[in-house]
């Protein structure tokens, strides 16, 4: 065992937790090395001094102030309970981050889905067919004409040409 290795065992020797073989090696090194003897003696002394530092007492105001704050917290908790057990449970669930995040994501998806559905981006709905449907409804569905894919295409094309020309394109 060299000096650096011996230093690693200072605490274990001080606390008497070394196994037999390491204890023999450590004490063998210390018997031969005066520098390590001195260092270990200083080590023991400084640990003892540190352990003898006095405990810091709480001030006389500590406990009354804390009790007052705890009573306030209790009132607040009781206030939340007063809202109703169902709401309390719901709030408790949403205090957990994973549930809170899941809830927010579900809400965004629901709002986004509703918006896209209304705008006609979902389920093959386009503005033209929506308009046609509403017109038909107003005319009390007199002649329900089947949708013509080609006509629809033509109308959409027209719209896109119009948009392009107003933007200064074709």
């Amino acid at each position, binding site marked *: 065992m060299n000096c650096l290795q011996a*230093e*690693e065992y*200072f*605490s*274990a020797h001080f606390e008497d937790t070394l196994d037999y073989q390491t204890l023999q090696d450590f004490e063998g090194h210390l018997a031969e090395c005066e520098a390590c003897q001195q*260092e270990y003696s*200083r*080590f023991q*002394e*400084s*640990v003892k*001094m*540190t*352990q003898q*530092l*006095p*405990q*810091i*007492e*709480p*001030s006389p105001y*500590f*406990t009354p*102030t*804390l*009790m007052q*704050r*705890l009573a306030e*917290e*209790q009132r607040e*908790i009781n206030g939340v309970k007063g809202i109703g057990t169902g709401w309390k449970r719901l709030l408790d669930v949403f205090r957990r981050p994973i549930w809170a995040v899941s809830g927010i994501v579900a809400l965004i998806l629901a709002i986004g889905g509703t918006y896209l559905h209304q705008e006609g981006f979902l389920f093959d709905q386009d503005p033209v067919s929506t308009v046609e449907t509403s017109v038909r409804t107003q005319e009390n569905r007199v002649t329900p004409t089947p949708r013509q894919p080609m006509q629809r295409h033509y109308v959409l094309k027209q719209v896109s040409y119009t948009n392009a020309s107003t933007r200064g394109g074709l």
Partner: protein
Amino acid sequence: MLDLDDELMERYQKGDESAFTLLVRRHQQPLINFIARFINDRNSAEDLAQETFIRIFKAAHRYKPGRAHFKTWMYHIAKNLCKNELRNRERRDKYRVDNVIDSGSDSKGDSEEIDLIANTPANQAFQPEVALERKELRNAIQKAIAELPEQYRLPLVLRDLQGLSYEEISEVLELRSGTTKSRINRARLMLKDKLKPFI
């Protein structure tokens, strides 16, 4: 079998509010001592200890007696609060250094450090000279502890001032047992070098 802390927590969970008061009384002194020694500031230590108890109070319904250890849970919460406090102070100090040109007037830290030692009851010795020597030594030890890097200071305070076992310290700091032992040994070696003039 439940230890007394767990039993008190269980009683509190069942509605016995006096059980929590008893828990506070049992742990307030060691907790304040730990925080004060770790952050080197007695006044803030009381505030942080109060905050620790309030957090425990709020989370008490989630505590499972017998599965966790109350003491390590309490120190874990206190440790996190202390780290936040030190981080905030560092930011504040940085801001102050950036904005205050006259650094000579900034001696509040030193006075707080001395107060921490002076306010301990053990200083009331009979002989003034001996008392002064002891006070100087305690100041030196506290200063040496405060100068240790945080990763060494924390396990040292928990071990040598709070008397926690290595297993408990590993639980509080979320470290492996070997790492905890090696950090405590390293901290003690550093302290020994810093206290050389007094030994």
